[in-house]
């Protein structure tokens, strides 16, 4: 007897499953079942199962404890307000059982439907109704332009780094040039006239001018030439010192 009960318990998918089965045994609308009777039946089944097997899953025992508590609340005379409304809890349990019952009916209804692959069969080997035309391409002008810019940037970046050669006119070069040219230039001449040709950038020209000025000042210090500037920011004029010989000073 108790053996049968234990086996019985194993056939259920959890306490709610068993409760639903017991509720159905009352043969009334699930919403009108007697919770008190249900609790007694549940506990009885569980006790029977415990007689043969002690290791009953915790959720079964928790449900038993909760149901016993619920039963005691329901049986108490309504005196003071209980902290939780037992009627409400019983109603909630009933509603849960009703929902599980509905879902079980739904499963049963589904099982009775005409099922594909069991009662009726679809096309086993469908035909391909799609023909892919791959002749077109996705490409628009922005993509083309991006590609061009990207290719050029990458090609440029791939060039080995070579610093731009900068033509600088050193002071030593400037002095050599002054010496070479001044002899052939009679009288006052603008300093810029002694700068080398072919200076491309403004930076190179300013650097050359500075070198030229330093070279001229150096020669003037040695007495080789004379400098003159008539006004602030005016042109710098140079000439060979009277009687002097450039290059022999210092």
């Amino acid at each position, binding site marked *: 007897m108790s053996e049968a009960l234990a086996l019985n318990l194993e056939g259920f998918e959890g306490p*709610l499953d068993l409760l639903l089965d017991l509720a159905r045994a009352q043969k009334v609308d699930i919403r009108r079942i007697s919770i008190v009777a249900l609790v007694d039946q549940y506990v009885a089944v569980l006790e029977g199962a415990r007689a043969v097997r002690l290791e009953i899953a915790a959720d079964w025992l928790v449900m038993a404890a909760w149901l016993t508590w619920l039963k005691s609340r329901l049986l108490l005379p309504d005196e003071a307000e209980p902290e939780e409304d037992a009627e409400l809890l019983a109603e909630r349990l009933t509603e849960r059982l009703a929902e599980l019952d509905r879902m079980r009916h739904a499963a049963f209804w589904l099982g009775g439907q005409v099922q594909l692959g069991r009662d009726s069969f679809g096309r086993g080997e469908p035909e391909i109704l799609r023909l892919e035309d791959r002749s077109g391409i996705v490409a628009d002008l922005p993509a083309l332009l991006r590609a061009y810019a990207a290719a050029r940037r990458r090609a440029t970046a791939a060039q080995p780094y070579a610093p731009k050669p900068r033509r600088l006119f050193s002071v030593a070069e400037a002095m050599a040039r002054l010496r070479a040219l001044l002899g052939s230039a009679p009288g006052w001449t603008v300093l810029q006239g002694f700068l080398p040709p072919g200076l491309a950038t403004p930076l190179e020209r300013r650097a050359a001018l500075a070198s030229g000025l330093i070279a001229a000042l150096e020669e003037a210090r040695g007495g080789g030439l004379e400098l003159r500037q008539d006004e602030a920011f005016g042109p710098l004029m140079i000439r060979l010192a009277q009687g002097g010989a450039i290059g022999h000073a210092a």
Partner: protein
Amino acid sequence: MDTLPEPDPAVFEHALRVAEALIFASDRPVKPERLQMALPMGTHAPAVLTALQARCAGRPVELVEIAGGFVFRTALDLAPAITRVVEVPRRLPRVAMETLAIIAYHQPVTRPEIEEIRGATLSQSTLDQLLDMSLVTGRGKKEVPGRPTLWGTTPRFLEQFGLKSLGDLPRREELVSVEAALPLSPPPA
């Protein structure tokens, strides 16, 4: 509504041929809009489908409306003969069927919610079974701590059980059995 002009009988006949071929060749329900694209000018998919359905009645392969479209399906009386040769897929166990019913009625629904309704834990293998058969699918996450996946049924579910839409499922109130006794009443025909 405007009354549609009567189509030329030859054109209508051609439309029937096109419809039969298109639906026959397809492995999934053909929606009227899809059929309309293939039909000759002046013929209308709903009228063609109605005529085709009438013509195919009683044939070994019948035209049925499922999952929002039309498909050919073998007649029910032939299943025993065919199953002798065609491999029959395994039956879904009770747990899987119940879980599927809960997903169908409560979708989108999370796994903890399914477990709550069934009052038992849901094993991964049960969910895997339903996923393998493409009967259910994930439908995003529920914005609660843990972000559990929301489950729902697929168009394949409708096809499997021959439903036009989820609206074809019995209403919840109809699922209550007043006699409340096992075994359950047989399903509606």
